[in-house]
């Protein structure tokens, strides 16, 4: 028995390959904590886990006898769907990275290892990473439910494991289908955008559902309850993971078998397609710009701005990430607007949302142009002052920001011109302050890190969010005609004052 076990991990074996890929995943996880020591990173993780357990406590009570039992299954289904969407999004990102990241994959492809082993091991690592990202939020809910509502909630653990395998199978199949559909050159970006949209889709659809009147929502729930036995009925196949998470052992066994079967089948069938696609992605030719006559421009400021716009416009993934900030914010505003129901409510719902979007987008764009500059030394060697370069970069931020905000501002102007006017004023203030913060405290990093840029300086990240919040609150109070609007404005200016460069460098 022991001999069989050690043979499983002999060099070149499937087990050995899995161990190798899991080790690389662990290194990637450690890399996310930057220069932090493993002990400090573990302490941070532990603190986060404790905090999430605290937050999960009321959720557990709500799911138990304290809550509305009529909403138990719809709520649990929403939670399970959210997790599955999230897992698929993570797996698709992982599968794309596995296909396009060279390094050790070239070595594996050149080795005599069978393609199914290579894909199998990599798929397990992808599943582990996806589950790891989700587990930190899901498992505290499971643990608190065990404490409050009984042992049956432990089934969330195997349900999540099965969910990880199921989602990874879908993620890999999706990545390979995208390569077949769009070709290896476009797939990288398309898949990143699809992964982001899949992740956001469920959150957005929930928000859309929230926009329906109460009666319509009740009808949807009732229709599901009344539906004939089959896919959509609560006892049907689509509800398997939900019933498994709720402690139904039979459903759990079916769900687990289904997930493991799909995962194994994907690795067996798609092994060769995976290696072929990986080889294709390695042999990509050059991306070309549009052939044109050679006509150089003269103005330095124009050239500097154009360079920034070109770099942003030619990075569709970056644009998708920026758009997501807008997508995530707008539904919240719509819900507030709907709940308040009057036109004047636009000033306290949509207008602050525009202010938040302005500040967040401005911060992201300022970080991209200033901190994520590809050739900072080259610019420093040019006969241009640093101040001029920075000013041009901030100018370059203004145009895409204006384009992003124009449509909601125009829409708001039709509903409430005064709210639109105040929104413009506060959006400019918010955008300028977060851009200045990024200018004064650059955090160098690659463009792909735009959404994780605050990992370098949590303090600056907090300041950025604080400024967004303060300007949004100022907008709400102004919309309500309150003189207390001066308070958040004063606080925002104070935050900027305390973060000014002279103090930072002192």
């Amino acid at each position, binding site marked *: 028995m022991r001999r069989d076990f050690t043979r499983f991990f002999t060099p070149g074996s499937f087990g050995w390959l899995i161990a190798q890929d899991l080790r690389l995943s662990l290194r990637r996880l450690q890399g996310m904590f930057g220069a932090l020591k493993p002990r400090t990173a573990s302490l941070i993780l532990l603190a986060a886990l404790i905090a999430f357990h605290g937050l999960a406590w009321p959720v557990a009570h709500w799911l138990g006898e304290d809550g509305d039992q009529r909403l138990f299954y719809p709520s649990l289904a929403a939670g399970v769907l959210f997790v599955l969407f999230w897992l698929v999004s993570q797996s698709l990102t992982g599968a794309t990275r596995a296909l396009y990241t060279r390094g050790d994959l070239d070595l594996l492809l050149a080795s005599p290892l069978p393609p199914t082993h290579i894909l199998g091991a990599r798929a397990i690592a992808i599943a582990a990473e996806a589950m790891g990202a989700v587990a930190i939020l899901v498992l505290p809910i499971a643990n608190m439910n065990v404490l409050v509502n009984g042992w049956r909630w432990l089934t969330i653990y195997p349900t999540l494991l099965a969910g990880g395998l199921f989602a990874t199978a879908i993620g890999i199949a999706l990545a390979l289908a995208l390569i077949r559909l769009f070709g290896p050159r476009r797939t990288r970006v398309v898949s990143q955008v699809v992964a982001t949209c899949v992740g956001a889709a469920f959150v957005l659809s929930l928000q859309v559902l929230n926009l329906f009147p109460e009666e319509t929502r009740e009808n949807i729930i009732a229709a599901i309850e009344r539906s004939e036995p089959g896919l959509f009925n609560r006892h049907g196949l689509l509800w398997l993971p939900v019933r498994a998470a709720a402690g139904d052992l039979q459903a759990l066994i079916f769900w687990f078998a289904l997930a493991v079967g799909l995962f194994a089948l994907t690795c067996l069938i798609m092994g060769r397609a995976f290696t072929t696609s990986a080889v294709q992605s390695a042999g990509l030719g050059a991306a070309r710009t549009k052939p044109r006559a050679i006509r150089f421009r003269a103005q330095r400021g124009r050239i500097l701005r154009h360079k920034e716009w070109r770099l942003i416009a030619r990075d569709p993934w970056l644009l998708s990430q920026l758009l997501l900030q807008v997508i995530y914010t707008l539904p919240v505003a719509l819900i507030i607007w709907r709940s308040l129901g009057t036109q004047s409510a636009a000033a306290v719902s949509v207008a602050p949302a525009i202010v938040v979007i302005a500040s967040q987008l401005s911060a992201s764009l300022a970080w991209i142009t200033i901190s994520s500059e590809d050739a900072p030394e080259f610019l420093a*060697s040019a006969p241009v002052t640093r101040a001029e370069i920075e000013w041009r970069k901030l100018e370059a931020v203004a145009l895409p920001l204006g384009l992003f905000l124009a449509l909601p501002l125009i829409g708001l102007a039709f509903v409430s011109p005064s709210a639109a006017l105040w929104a413009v004023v506060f959006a400019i203030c918010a955008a300028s302050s977060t851009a200045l913060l990024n200018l004064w405290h650059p955090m160098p990093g690659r463009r792909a890190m735009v959404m994780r840029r605050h990992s370098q300086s949590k303090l600056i990240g907090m300041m950025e969010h604080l400024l967004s919040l303060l300007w949004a609150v100022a907008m709400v109070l102004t919309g309500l005609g309150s003189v207390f609007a001066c308070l958040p404005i004063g606080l925002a200016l104070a935050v900027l004052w305390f973060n000014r460069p002279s103090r930072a460098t002192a």
Partner: protein
Amino acid sequence: MTGPADHFSTIPAAVSLRGLTKRFGDRIAVGGLDLTVRAGELYALLGPNGAGKTTTLRMVAGLLPADEGTIEVFGIDARRDPIAAKRITAWLPDEPMLYDKLDPLEYLEFVAGLWSVAPEIAEERAVALLHTLGLWEHRFERCESFSRGMKQKVALAGALIHDPNLLMLDEPLTGLDAAIARQVKDLLMERVRAGAAIVLTTHILDVAERLADRIGIIHDGRLIAEGTLAELRQLAGQNHSTLEDVFLELTGQGPAGQGPAAQPTAIDA
């Protein structure tokens, strides 16, 4: 008998460093460096890894503040008026600094714009440089797909498009294939003949041996020897040896190495 070193001593200085010093904490990266490079001269700065070559070039390029000393570029005090000095200087680091999402033409337009080169002149130069460096066929391809050698060529074209009087090149031939390396060498010699000064660092001693008018050997942030190849041979007491032998001897890494020369030795000084 007058050697090349004597010839250059009569020409105005393109770069003049006096007592240039840079410290990183307790470590002295460059210690009181005195160096003069004349217009129309190709000067090779050699030294082991960590000797202070790149630090010196970065200080002249205005990328690193010097702690002490003076830097003059064609008579301009580069520490006092860095913008004026940068206007006539080009800096090419060992790792090409490009924008991956731009094509070579867009990159050259950007560089020409930064150095305020008139568009019609810049267009003409861009076409000539792209042809010379074998980049013309790739002018509409984004730099992200280029090999290191190709990127190096684009960066070199960028360094030359504003026709600088002083070129500082850190390992300019790294990653280039033999044919392009030859073209680059010819291009550099052409610039030198046109009156530009070139300071280059290289680990390919053959390049220094063939191209450089004078060679400076830097060790532990100090210039330990300087002169033509013949003069360095004489200094090392190895009249028929290669530059490699001389370099290893002077830096104390040769078979009979006793550590680097104790005193700075500038033959033409």
